[in-house]
C-alpha cells in the first residue's frame, strides 16, 4: 500500500460510477440541523450578550457592545456548521456494539476544494475581525474636536482609589464625579502594586502601575451612578476595592469640585 497523503477523490475509479460523491453524503439532514441551530443561536447572539453587559454610559461602551453582538452574529454560522456535523455524526453515522464495525468507512483522505474554501473563509473572517477592531479602536473625530479634555488623576493604593482634578485648582476627592458629555482623560498610577482602573459601564480599563502613568479617555454621556472596580488581583482586599462614579451636569460638577479640599503641594 502506498503512502497516500494527496487528495483521493471520493468516488475513486472502480467505485460505483453512477452516483456522484456529494449525493451520497447526507447533505439535507445536516443542512436541516444547521438551519435549526442558526435559528436558535441568532436571537441569542443578537440579544443575550448585549443585555448581560447592561446599559452603556459612553459611546465607547456602546461600540464594544455592538462589537460583541457583531462577532456573536458572525460566529453563529461557524458554530452551527461544526455542531451540525458533530450532531449528525452522533445520530446518523453511529455504530453501536462491543465489536468494531464490520465494514470500514470510505477512505476520504482530504478534499482540496473543501480545505481551500475553509481556509479562505476563515481568513476572510479573520480580516473582518481585524478591520472591525481597528475601526472601533480608532479615536473618534468628535472626541478630538471637542476641545481640551478634563484631566483627572487616578491613584490606586491597597485597597482604595483616590482622584485629583489638576484643572480645577488641584481639588482632591476620594470619589469620582464627572460632568456629562465632557471628554475626560484619566492619568492613572499606583502607590504600591499593580491595580486596574475599570469603569464598568463606560468600557474604560487601564492598569495602574507603580512608577508609571497610563492614560485612558472617555466621554460619559449619561447622568447616573456607575461602578468602578479593580480588575487586577492586588492582595488581601482586592474584592472590596470598588467605588462608584457619579456623572452629573456641568453646573453640578462645577459646584461640587469647588467644595473639595485642595492638595497642599
Amino acid at each position: 500500500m502506498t503512502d497516500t497523503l494527496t487528495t483521493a477523490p471520493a468516488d475513486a475509479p472502480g467505485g460505483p460510477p453512477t452516483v456522484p460523491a456529494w449525493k451520497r453524503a447526507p447533505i439535507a439532514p445536516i443542512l436541516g440541523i444547521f438551519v435549526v441551530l442558526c435559528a436558535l443561536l441568532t436571537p441569542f447572539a443578537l440579544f443575550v450578550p448585549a443585555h448581560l453587559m447592561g446599559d452603556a454610559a459612553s459611546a465607547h461602551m456602546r461600540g464594544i457592545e455592538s462589537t460583541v453582538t457583531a462577532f456573536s452574529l458572525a460566529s453563529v454560522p461557524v458554530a452551527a456548521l461544526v455542531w451540525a456535523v458533530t450532531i449528525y455524526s452522533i445520530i446518523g453515522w453511529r455504530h453501536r456494539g462491543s465489536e468494531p464495525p464490520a465494514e470500514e468507512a470510505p477512505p476520504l483522505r482530504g478534499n482540496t476544494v473543501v480545505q481551500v474554501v475553509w481556509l479562505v473563509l476563515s481568513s476572510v473572517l479573520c480580516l473582518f475581525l481585524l478591520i472591525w477592531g481597528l475601526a472601533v479602536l480608532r479615536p473618534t473625530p468628535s472626541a478630538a474636536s471637542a476641545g481640551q479634555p478634563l484631566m483627572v488623576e487616578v491613584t490606586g493604593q491597597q485597597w482604595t482609589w483616590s482622584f485629583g482634578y489638576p484643572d480645577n485648582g488641584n481639588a482632591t476627592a476620594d470619589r469620582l464625579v464627572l460632568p456629562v458629555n465632557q471628554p475626560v482623560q484619566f492619568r492613572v498610577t499606583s502607590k504600591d502594586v499593580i491595580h486596574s482602573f475599570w469603569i464598568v459601564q463606560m468600557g474604560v480599563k487601564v492598569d495602574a502601575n507603580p512608577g508609571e502613568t497610563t492614560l485612558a479617555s472617555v466621554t460619559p454621556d449619561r447622568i447616573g451612578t456607575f461602578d468602578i472596580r479593580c480588575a487586577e488581583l492586588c492582595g488581601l482586599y482586592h474584592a472590596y476595592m470598588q467605588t462608584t462614579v457619579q456623572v452629573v451636569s456641568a453646573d453640578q460638577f462645577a459646584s461640587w469640585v469647588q467644595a473639595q479640599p485642595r492638595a497642599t503641594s
Partner: protein
Amino acid sequence: MVDTAVAETAIGREPRRRVPRLNVLTGVVCGLILAGAGWGVSSWLLSAGDYGADRVVSITMVCWAVGFLVGVGALAGPIRWLLGRDLSVADEHVLAGKDQGVGRYFRFTTDHKVVGVQYLVLSMTLFGVGGLLAMLIRTQLIRPGARFVSPQTYNTIVGMHGIIMIIGTIIMVSGPFGNFILPIMIGARDMAFPRLNALSFWLICAAVPVLLATFFFGGIPTGWSVYAPLSDQAPAGMDCFLITIIIFAISSGIAGVNITTTAVKMRARGMTWTRTPIFVFGTVSSVALGVIAFPMFMAAMVLEGLNRTTGTVFYDAAHGGSAWLYAHLFWLMGHPEVYVILLPAFAAVLELTPVFARKPLFSFLGAVTGIAGIIGLSMFVWAHHMFISGWAPALDGPFMLTTELISIPTGLLILVLLGTLWRGTVWMRLPVMATFAMLWNFIIGGITGIYLSDVPVDQAMHGSMFVTAHFHFTLMGGALTGFAGALAYWFPKMTGRMLDERLGMIGFWIIQIGFNVTFLGMFAVGLAGQPRRVADYPSLFATGNLVSSIGAYIIGSGALIYLYAVVHSWRHGRRAPGNPWGAKTLEWQVPTPVPLENFTVLPVVTSDFYGYGEGGSAAPTPAPRRIAAPVPSGAAATTQEGGTA
C-alpha cells in the same frame, strides 16, 4: 536470571545491589535530613535582616529537593560514572525495573512504561488536589458575602488551584502517554535518554511538596501569575512557589529534550515523517515549545527570588526596574504554555478519532500544518495579555492581528476532526466521546477567545470572569476532555484492563454537563462586570455565581465517578486483549502487558497508520532478522522474551 548471574560475576555484588535499594522512602528521609541541615545552617548564618526568612526558606527548600533526588537514587548513574564504574547492561536492567514487581513504581526506574504510569498517577493526583481547591473556591463564591474562608486563604487557594492545574495539565498527556505510548508508537525500545526520563519525573515529585509547603508559609496572595511587585510583599510561601517553578522548568526542559530526541532519532525503519502518527507531532511540538517557553518563567522566578532574598530591584520602577518586565517574561511563557497544554490533548483526539470513525485521518498534512501554525504564531501573541497594561498602545493592532491569525490553523484542526467524522462509521465507545465534547467546548472557547483578542472588547472583559470562563473552556473543555479520551483509549494498553465503559460514560457526561453549567454561568457574570479572583462580589452577580457553584459540584461528582471507574477498572477490570479497538498504530501490535524493551523484533513501517477502509492490512511488516537497530540503555543485543506486568 542468567543475565543477573552474569552481571554479578562481572561487576561484583555490592554496586548492583545498591541501586535498587533506594526508593521514594529513602528519598523522603534523605530530603528531610538535608532540609533540616540546610535550615539549621542558614538560620544560624543568614537569618538576620529583612531578607532572613526568605533566605532560610529558599535554602531549606532547595536542600530538600537535592536531598530527595539523591535519596531516590537519581544521581546513581552519574556518581558511578565519576567513580569510573559506569553502569553495565545488567545494571541498566536493574535500573529499568526488571523483575521488580510493583516496587519499581516507587523507585528511580528508567523503563519508559513505568515512568508513564508514574506520570499518570501524579497528574491525576494533582487534578484531585486542584479540583478540591476549585470546590473550595466555588463554595466561597456560592453567595455574596459568604465567609467560608478568609480573603487571605481565598487568594492562596486561587493561586494554588491555578498552578496545580497548570502543572497537572502540562504533564497530563506528554507525561503518561508521551512516555508510555510514544516510544512504542514509533517502534523504539525506550526513550532516547531513559535516566533523564526518570529524572524529569522525580524532579516534579521533589517540587510538589515544596509547592504544598506554600500553604504553611503564609500562602501566596497573588494568583499563579505572581505579578510583581505584589509578589515582593508576599510571605515566605512565595519562596516555595519560586523554587517549585524553577524545579518544574528544569524538569520540563529535560522531558522536552528527551521526547523530542526520541521522536526525531528513534523512529522505526520506514517511518518517514509523513507516516509518523499525528500524536507524535502534537506531543513533540508541545514539549519543544515548552523547552523554549519555560526558561522565561524560570528566569522571571530567579529574578524575583533575588529580589526577595538579596534586595535587588528588577521589577521596582522606583529604582529603575519595571513591573512590565515581569509581565513580559511571564506571558512569553504564559501564552505558548496554553498550547503546550492543548496540543498533545488535541493530537490525542486526532489520533483516536480515525480509529473509531474507521476512516483515515482527513488531511494528515492539514493537521500537521495546523499544529505547526499554532506553534509558530504562539510565540508572537504574548502581549495580548497586556493590552490594558498601558505598556505600548501602538502595538495593540499588531498583537490583535497575530492573535486573530491563530484562529486559522486552529480552524484547520477542527476541519480535520470534522472531515474524519464525515461519513464515517462512528463506533460509539468511551474514547470517541472526547471528540464530540471537544468539538462542542472548543468552539465556545475559541469564539470567546476571539472577543478577547479584540482590543476594545478586551477593555471591557480583561480581568473579568469572562476571561476565566474562556480559558476554562479551552483548557478544561478542550484539553482536559482530550485527556479523558486519551486515558480511555490507551487505558487497556497501559493497565492491561478495560476501562469500565458504563461508569466511564456516566462520569464523563456528568463532567461535561456540569462543566457547561459552571462556565456558561461564569460568562454571564463576566459580561455583567464581575472581576476575576475576587473573594466576594456585589449581590448583582448572585444568580450567575450560584449557577456556577452548582455546576462545579456537578463536575466534582462526575469526576469522582470517572475516577472510581479508572481505579476500579485498573484493579478489577476485564482483561484487555492486545488490540481492543482494532487500531493500526504500533503500540497496539505489541502484546499486553508490554514486555520490557517493547519489541523482540523492531518493526519496519511500509505505510502510514490510517489506512482504514483502504483494504489490506496496515500492520507493519516485521523484519525478522533486524535486531541490531540502535537501542538505548546499552542493552543492544538482548531480546526480551517477556517481562513483568
